[in-house]
């Protein structure tokens, strides 16, 4: 079983829709969870950083962590064409530890 599983997509949704992106993981030692956005030919850009189970909101983005189910989600409200990118879920066991990434989901927001 892979450590972090993420559907690669592509996922196409109309502008203004709510987007739901998800990852599952197998190792309960993961404690910190991130979502990165990656545009073509660019590096991963940190969007959200969470520790505890529950929801964390930042503008149009909400990160959700369910440690009991080993499941994390990112919701994007009022999606915009500029949100079209690859979204990487990522996690670490300790704060200064190596990041384990999901494969990334390619998202297309259709105008």
């Amino acid at each position, binding site marked *: 079983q892979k450590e972090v599983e993420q559907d690669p997509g592509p996922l196409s949704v109309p502008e203004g829709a709510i987007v739901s992106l998800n990852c599952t993981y197998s190792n309960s030692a993961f404690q*910190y969870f*991130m979502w*990165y956005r990656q545009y073509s*030919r*660019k*590096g*991963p*850009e*940190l969007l959200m*950083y969470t520790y505890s189970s529950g929801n964390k909101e930042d503008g149009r983005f909400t990160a959700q962590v369910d440690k009991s189910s080993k499941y994390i989600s990112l919701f994007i409200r009022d999606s915009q064409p500029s949100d079209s990118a690859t979204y*990487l879920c990522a996690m670490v066991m*300790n*704060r*200064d*530890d*190596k*990041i*384990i*990434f*999901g*494969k*990334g989901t390619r998202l297309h927001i259709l105008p």
Partner: protein
Amino acid sequence: EPEVTQTPSHQVTQMGQEVILRCVPISNHLYFYWYRQILGQKVEFLVSFYNNEISEKSEIFDDQFSVERPDGSNFTLKIRSTKLEDSAMYFCASAGDSNQPQHFGDGTRLSIL
């Protein structure tokens, strides 16, 4: 906003040659990392560096790889004798302290011919 900068953006090298990839981390950061992403694959950890020494390295990071922080601002990755399979995007990342997440540069695309 401070950012991690990497040079060059694209490096083309003959197989067997040495290559040095350069990174300038965010200025007050203490933890440094290299990752790579082979086309179509996941971003993979290579090495972490703290307090002037390697903290952890992956099985990818064999004797052909080395890292160095030659001065107070640069962080380099050297590949001594490049192979075709070293072709990838190489990302540098840094973090301020153990409470902070890692921030990434835009990467160096390494092409081995």
